[in-house]
């Protein structure tokens, strides 16, 4: 299988500004450090790491919500391979319909002042304004595919529960039939029961629509269940990567071992015995 996305040596650095009136740049903070990975068509790649590890910055840089400092992200678009890092926002616009994102917070990611119908239709309005008369039909079709009623169209987001809102966010991300979908902690804010439903939905849609997922999460059990391969990020770098079963059963890097040892078991007889950061030489 060919790689849908091939990232090599991607770094993101933020300028650190001096305080005061003339804010000169005094140094740089490296959020993502020379990250390389490859995501095959139809694959399901997890990115795990703790807060501050740079996982969200990495995916936002790939989608060009922020600008990477160096490196390349080769994306196999419908019109051939392009390096996302080399394009400006105007050149990116036609590519946006092929890559979409599902956000963590189902409350903050939907505009509270727009009706659900308008929210889900917005990508259509932007990319296919010429087919306006079919939008409503396509929106209703998409809402039904993610398990929502057609009545949802005329309601506002505040009328929906967290899980339902996340379905609205999924419908918006998928309505243009993208190839790559980035899930940025897409199930982290959801209740356990709802989380299972959304994970199932994402799996079903992957089958039906031939999607490729880049799945950012901090819940290791979810990543193990959902993904084929995973990257472990620590302080901006990938410390370990591999197929989930191998990585979870036989971790090599100390940080991966630490992370795995901290997962509480659902069995009360398996007492949690986390490894100690300092003895592993991690700070």
């Amino acid at each position, binding site marked *: 299988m060919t790689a849908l996305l091939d990232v090599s040596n991607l770094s993101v650095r933020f300028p650190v500004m001096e305080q005061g009136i003339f804010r000169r740049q005094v140094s740089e903070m490296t959020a993502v450090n020379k990250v390389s990975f490859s995501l095959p068509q139809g694959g399901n790649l997890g990115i795990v790491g703790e807060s501050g590890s740079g996982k969200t910055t990495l995916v936002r840089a790939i989608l060009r919500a922020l600008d990477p400092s160096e490196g390349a992200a080769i994306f196999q678009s419908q019109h051939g391979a392009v390096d996302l890092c080399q394009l400006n926002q105007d050149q990116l616009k036609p590519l946006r319909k092929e890559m979409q994102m599902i956000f963590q917070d189902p409350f903050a990611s939907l*505009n*509270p002042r727009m*009706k659900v119908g308008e929210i889900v239709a*917005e990508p259509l309005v*932007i990319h296919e304004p010429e087919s306006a008369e079919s939008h409503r039909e396509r929106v209703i079709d998409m809402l039904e595919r993610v398990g929502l009623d057609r009545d949802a169209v005329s309601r506002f987001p*505040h009328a929906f529960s967290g899980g339902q809102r996340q379905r609205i966010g999924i419908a918006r991300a998928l309505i243009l039939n993208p190839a790559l979908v980035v899930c940025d902690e897409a199930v982290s804010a959801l209740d356990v029961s709802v989380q299972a439903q959304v994970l199932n939905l994402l799996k079903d849609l992957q089958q039906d629509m031939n999607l490729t997922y880049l799945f950012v999460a901090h819940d290791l059990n979810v990543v193990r269940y959902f993904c084929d391969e995973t990257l472990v990020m620590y302080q901006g770098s990938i410390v370990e990567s591999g197929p989930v079963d191998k990585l979870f059963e036989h971790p090599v890097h100390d940080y991966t071992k630490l992370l795995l040892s901290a997962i509480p078991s659902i069995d009360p007889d398996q007492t949690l015995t986390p490894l100690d950061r300092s003895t592993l030489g991690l700070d």
Partner: protein
Amino acid sequence: MTSLRNQATIDKAATAELSSAQLTWLRFKRHRLAVASGMFLIAIYFVAAFCEFFAPYDPSWRNSKAIFAPPQEIHFVDEKGDFHLRPFVYGYHLHINPDTWVREYEEDKSQRYPLRFFAGGIEYEFWNLFRANRHFVTVEANHYLHFFGTDKLGRDIFSRVIYGARISLSLGLIGVALTIVLGVLIGGLAGYLGGRVDNLIQRSIEVLQSIPTLPLWMALSAALPVHWSPLTVYFGIIVILSLIQWTGLARVVRGRFLALREEDFVVAARLMGASQFRIITRHLLPSFMSHIITTATLAIPGMILAETALSFLGVGLRSPVVSWGVLLQQAQNYQVIVLTPWLLIPGVFVILVVIAFNLLGDGMRDAADPYGGNAG
């Protein structure tokens, strides 16, 4: 505490198709004081808009028989104890105190002036459209009616307060409208572009805000050419006040812009490929419209007070224009408080309007922002 919020709104079916504006209205309606203030303001703006009709007299008309006359009382029962369905006022009986030479008025019970509603009176030109002579309340032609008394030239203060309302209140509205345009434009620019532009605008605002406002107003007003017509001066004053007041709003707008730019739903729109124009008009502006309206409401009384202060000091509007500040000019010495306290009545209206705007603005803020910004 999120679960608390969820609990409070479990039954969402009833509100499902209400927009956030409608929900805001539901919450606003529970603020009794704000609703009452809103109604008071609507009433007073209505009167100001139709002041020719509501004022019994022209503001420059002089009653030479009643100089410094005190307010007349409205009666229903006459001196014989007979009840009259039509309220009436008594005429004045003037005598000059032989010791102090002060004019003293008493009610002349022999002259009973019944009030007449929607009757003909002094002719006026309504909004430069047509001539009319109907007034809301008046008395017969050779009688006179001074609810709030008269000033040193015998002009009716009640009529002058009503005419002054038109100038003072409209000045507040137009001034704030101009402030919003300036504040949103400049603040939005700073927030959206960020970086150097933001830095420059921020520093300029700081400089502007550090100049003491009163001397600045006075200097700018003094610079208005003397030969300007009253209308031009009126707009000149509005521009001066707005030029100084926009800074506060610009800061609010900038802050909201910066916060909103990082909101997930705005990032989502960017990742969808939405144009800058679309992001601003569809996502950013609607999200802080309620904020702007509230801030503006709270800024109107500042405008009105500023105009009053300027005119009171004699550097704002000048006679023959009638504004509340101009009216208060007559109350600049302590004699007024002792001898003719009714000249202070325009000040009462300034206070009432300012309080009403503040209460209304508070109510709107609470209704629009129940959880501190996130309209979830």
